[in-house]
C-alpha cells in the first residue's frame, strides 16, 4: 500500500512548499539592509525600520475605520468625510491647532459692527484655487449663495447643506441675511439677528470655500472631485479602500505642506489596523483599542498620540416614562454609577469623569457644579424618599450602544458594569442593544427604552453646540433624546444664542448647568480622550479636539 501513497503526498508537499517557498524567498529578498532601490521595488511587506528610513519618507498613510461619504465639505455631516475635506478646502477662519480658538485663514482680518449684525472680512490676496481660479470676494459670495439659496442651480440633486442649515438656521429662519462683495478683497456679512458664536461657526470645516469654476463645471461630480485652496489636491478615490491627496504646488503658505502625499486608508477592524501599523504598512491610525495600549507603549517604533477631549458620553433617562419623570429617582441613580471604575476598565484610563453635559474646555463651563459621588447608601436613601424603599418594582429597559464611538468604546460592557451597580440599589435592568439604525430609531421615539446611552462630539467649541443641541426643548425630536424640557433652562439657552457679550453669555450657560445638574436628565459619564497611534518618526501632528484637522505641518523625522 505504501507505494500508492507516495506520489500524492509528494504532490501535496510540493504545493505546500511552493506556497511557503514564495514567502520565504520574498523574505530573503527584502531583508533589512537591502538597498533603497530594492526596497522601493517591493516595499510593502517588510515594514522594518531599516526599510522606510532608507528613503526619506514624504507619503503619509493614515488609516481609519470607515470611508468618506462625499468630499464636498458643505454637503457632508460625517467625520470621515470632513477628515479628508479639511486637506482640500479652507474657510475664512479656522481653529488654532489643538484648540477651538479661532484664527484667520483665507480672511486676513475681520471687523464686527457694534450691534453685532455686520461682519466685514478682509481676504488674503494672491490666493488661488488649485485649478487656477482666483480666490476672491466673488468666490466667497458664490459659495454662501449656493448654500443658502434653496433654488440655487448649484445645489445639485441630493445635495443638502446640513451644517449650514443647523449652524445658520434653516430656510425661512436664516441667520445670515446677505453676503456681498464690497471689493475683490472684502466680503460683508449682514445678519438678521446677532449670533454669538458666528465666528466660531464660520471657522467650521464644512464652510470651506470651493472653486466656483470647478463647481460650475463638474456639477454633481464636484462631490467626488473637489477643488479648494487647501494644502493638498484631490488625486484619487478608490471607494472603501483609499483616498489619495497630493501636495498643492501652488499653496499660498510658503514651504507647506511638508508632506508630498497623504493616503487615507480604510481598515474596518481595530485590531487589524493596529497590526498594519506595527507592520509598517501604515503610519498613523485612529481608534486604538484600549487593550492595545500596553503594546503601543512598549513599542519603540511607535508613538501614542492623544486627541484633546471634546466629547461627552452619557446615560440618558427617558423622562417620558415613569419613574424617570421623577427627578429624585434620576438623582438617586446618578449616585449609583462608579465613573472612575468604568474609566479604568473600559477606557484604559484615557477619559475623565463628566460632571456637566459639556467638556471642561468649552466656554462657560461651570467648575463649581459638584458631581454626585459614587454612594450607594445615598442612592438607596433617595430612592426611598421618592417612594421606592425596596428599589424599583419593574425591570427597566437599558439601551446599550451597539457601535463603538470615541466616547463609548464598548457600550455593552459599560452597560453591564452600570447594570451591576444599579442592581445593588434594587434597580433591575434589562440590557438591549439592537443594531445601530434600529437603536437610533427607538431612542428617538422613546417608546421602548427607559435608559439609553449616547454621546456627542463638539463641532466648534461653543457651549450652544452642546447644551442647546442636546437639552433644549426645541431639540426634542432631534438630539434631545431624554425629552427633557425645563422652561428656565430653555430661556437661558435661547438667550445664550443671541447674547453677544461674552461675560454675560458665560453666566447664562453657567446657570443652565446648575439647573441641569439638579434636574439630572442624564448621568453624564465621561469625556474621553480618543487614542491615536503613529510611527515614532511622525512629527508636527497636533490633533484637533473637534476630531479632524489639516495635515499641513506633518512630516517624518
Amino acid at each position, binding site marked *: 500500500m505504501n507505494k500508492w501513497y507516495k506520489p500524492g503526498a509528494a504532490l501535496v508537499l510540493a504545493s505546500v512548499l511552493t506556497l511557503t517557498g514564495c514567502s520565504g524567498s520574498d523574505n530573503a529578498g527584502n531583508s533589512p539592509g537591502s538597498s533603497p532601490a530594492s526596497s522601493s521595488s517591493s516595499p510593502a511587506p517588510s515594514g522594518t525600520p531599516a526599510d522606510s528610513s532608507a528613503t526619506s519618507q514624504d507619503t503619509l498613510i493614515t488609516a481609519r475605520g470607515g470611508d468618506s461619504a462625499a468630499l464636498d465639505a458643505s454637503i457632508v455631516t460625517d467625520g470621515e468625510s470632513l477628515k479628508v475635506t479639511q486637506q482640500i478646502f479652507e474657510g475664512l477662519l479656522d481653529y488654532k491647532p489643538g484648540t477651538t480658538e479661532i484664527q484667520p485663514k483665507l480672511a486676513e482680518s475681520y471687523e464686527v459692527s457694534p450691534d453685532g449684525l455686520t461682519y466685514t472680512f478682509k481676504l488674503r490676496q494672491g490666493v488661488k484655487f488649485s485649478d487656477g481660479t482666483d480666490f476672491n470676494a466673488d468666490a466667497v459670495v458664490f459659495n454662501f449663495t449656493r448654500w443658502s439659496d434653496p433654488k440655487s442651480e448649484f445645489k445639485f440633486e441630493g445635495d*443638502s447643506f446640513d451644517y449650514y442649515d443647523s449652524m445658520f438656521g434653516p430656510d425661512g429662519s436664516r441667520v445670515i441675511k446677505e453676503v456681498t462683495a464690497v471689493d475683490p478683497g472684502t466680503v460683508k456679512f449682514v445678519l438678521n439677528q446677532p449670533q454669538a458664536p458666528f465666528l466660531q461657526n464660520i471657522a467650521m470645516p464644512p464652510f470651506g470655500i470651493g472653486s466656483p469654476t470647478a463647481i460650475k463645471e463638474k456639477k454633481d461630480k464636484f462631490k467626488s472631485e473637489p477643488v479648494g485652496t487647501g494644502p493638498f489636491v484631490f488625486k484619487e478615490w478608490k471607494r472603501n479602500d483609499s483616498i489619495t491627496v497630493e501636495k498643492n504646488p501652488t499653496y499660498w503658505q510658503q514651504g507647506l505642506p511638508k508632506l508630498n502625499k497623504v493616503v487615507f486608508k480604510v481598515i474596518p477592524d481595530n485590531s487589524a489596523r493596529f497590526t498594519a501599523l506595527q507592520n509598517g504598512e501604515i503610519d498613523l491610525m485612529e481608534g486604538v483599542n484600549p487593550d492595545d495600549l500596553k503594546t503601543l507603549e512598549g513599542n519603540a517604533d511607535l508613538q501614542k498620540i492623544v486627541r484633546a477631549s471634546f466629547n461627552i458620553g452619557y446615560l440618558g433617562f427617558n423622562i417620558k416614562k415613569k419613574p424617570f419623570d421623577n427627578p429624585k429617582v434620576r438623582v438617586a441613580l446618578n449616585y449609583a454609577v462608579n465613573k472612575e471604575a468604568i474609566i479604568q476598565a473600559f477606557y484604559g484610563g484615557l477619559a475623565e469623569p463628566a460632571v456637566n453635559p459639556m467638556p471642561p474646555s468649552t466656554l462657560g463651563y461651570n467648575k463649581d457644579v459638584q458631581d454626585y459621588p459614587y454612594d450607594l447608601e445615598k442612592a438607596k436613601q433617595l430612592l426611598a424618599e421618592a417612594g421606592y424603599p425596596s428599589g424599583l418594582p419593574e425591570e427597566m429597559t437599558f439601551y446599550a450602544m451597539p457601535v463603538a464611538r470615541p466616547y463609548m468604546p464598548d457600550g455593552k460592557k459599560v452597560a453591564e458594569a452600570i447594570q451591576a451597580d444599579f442592581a445593588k440599589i434594587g434597580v433591575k435592568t434589562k440590557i438591549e442593544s439592537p443594531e445601530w*439604525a434600529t437603536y437610533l430609531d427607538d431612542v428617538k421615539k422613546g417608546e421602548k427604552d427607559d435608559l439609553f446611552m449616547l454621546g456627542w462630539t463638539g463641532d466648534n467649541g461653543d457651549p450652544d453646540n452642546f447644551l442647546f443641541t442636546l437639552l433644549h426643548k426645541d431639540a426634542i425630536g432631534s438630539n434631545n433624546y431624554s425629552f427633557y424640557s425645563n422652561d428656565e433652562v430653555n430661556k437661558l439657552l435661547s438667550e445664550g444664542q443671541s447674547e453677544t457679550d461674552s461675560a454675560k453669555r458665560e453666566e447664562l450657560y453657567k446657570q443652565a448647568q446648575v439647573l441641569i445638574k439638579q434636574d439630572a436628565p442624564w448621568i453624564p459619564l465621561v469625556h474621553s480622550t480618543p487614542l491615536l497611534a503613529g510611527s515614532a518618526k511622525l512629527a508636527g501632528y497636533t490633533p484637533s479636539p473637534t476630531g479632524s484637522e489639516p495635515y499641513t505641518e506633518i512630516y517624518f523625522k
Partner: protein
Amino acid sequence: MLNYTIRRLLMLIPVLLGMTIIVFSIIHAIPGDPAEVILGEKASNSSKEALRKELKLDQPLLVQYGDYLKKLAAGDLGTSIRTREPISAEITPYLAATLELTLVAMAFAVFFGVNAGILSAWKQNSWFDYLSMLIALIGVSMPIFWLGLMEQWLFALELKWLPSIGRMNARDPVESVTNLYLIDSLLSGRADQFWTVVKHLILPGIALGTIPMAIIARMTRSSMLEVLRSDYIRTAKAKGLSQMFIIYKHALRNAFIPVLTVIGLQFGLLLGGAVLTETIFAWPGVGRYIFDAIASRDYPVIQSGILIIAFIFVLINLLVDLLYAAVDPRINFK
C-alpha cells in the same frame, strides 16, 4: 445543450423577480430610518424630511416597489443614498476585488481540498486520512475572524513575510484599469507590483478558502471511497496501470460530479458572503459594500447589490450544470 442553456437563462427571470420581492420586503420590514442613519445626528430635521421625500420613503411600499422595478427594467440599478453615486458604476470595482480574492481562495480550496480528499480515500484509515480529516473538521468549524487575525499575527507581525491588510501597498498603488490588480499590474508592466499583489492575496485567500477547502476535501473523500470500491478500478489495478493514472484518470472523473456541485456552490457563496474576510483584511469587496449598506439602510444598494450577487450565483450554478456534461459524457441535457 443550447436549448437547455436558453431555457435555464429564461428561468432566471422569475427567480430574480422573486429575489427582488423578498429583499424588498425584508429591508422594509426591519426598523430604522435611512435619513436618520445616513445624515447622522448633526443633520437638521428638515433635511431629514427632505431626504425621506426625495427617496419617496413617505410613499406606500407598493409604489416604491413599482418604481424600483420600472427603473430596473430600464437597466437602472439606482443611486446609493449614502454616496449619491450610481450603483452600477460604484459596484464594479467592488465586484472585481471580490472576484480576484474568490478566485485565489477557490484555487487554494480546490487544489488542497481535492488532493487531500483523494489521498484520504486512497489511504483510508491511515494516519494521513485521520490527520487530514481532522484538519478538515477544524477547517469547517473555524471562525474566519479568528483565523484571519491569527494569520496576520503570525505571518505579518511575527514573521514579517506577508502584508497584513489591503489589496496593494498603499505607497505604490496599482493603476486601475480592470480593477483586477493581478492583471492591472501586468498591464502596466510592473512585475514587482504583480508580486506584491500576489503577496497581498495569500493571507485573505487562505482565510477565505479554508472552509470551502475542508468541505471539498470531505466531499471528495466520500465520493472517491465509493468509486474506488467499484469493479472497474480493481480491473485497472489488475491490469497494472500506474496508480496516478488510476486515481486521476479513472477514479476522479467519476467521483467528481458531487465535488463539482460543492465547488460551484462554495464559489457562489464566497462571491457574496465574504464580509468577515473583507473586514479583517480591509478588502474593498462587494460583501462589505452590501453589509455597510445594510447598516446605513442604503436601500437601493442593498436591493441591487443582492440582486447582482443572486444573478451571479445562479449563473455559476448553470455553469456547473453544463460542466457536468463535460466531465461525464453520459449526462445529456435535453
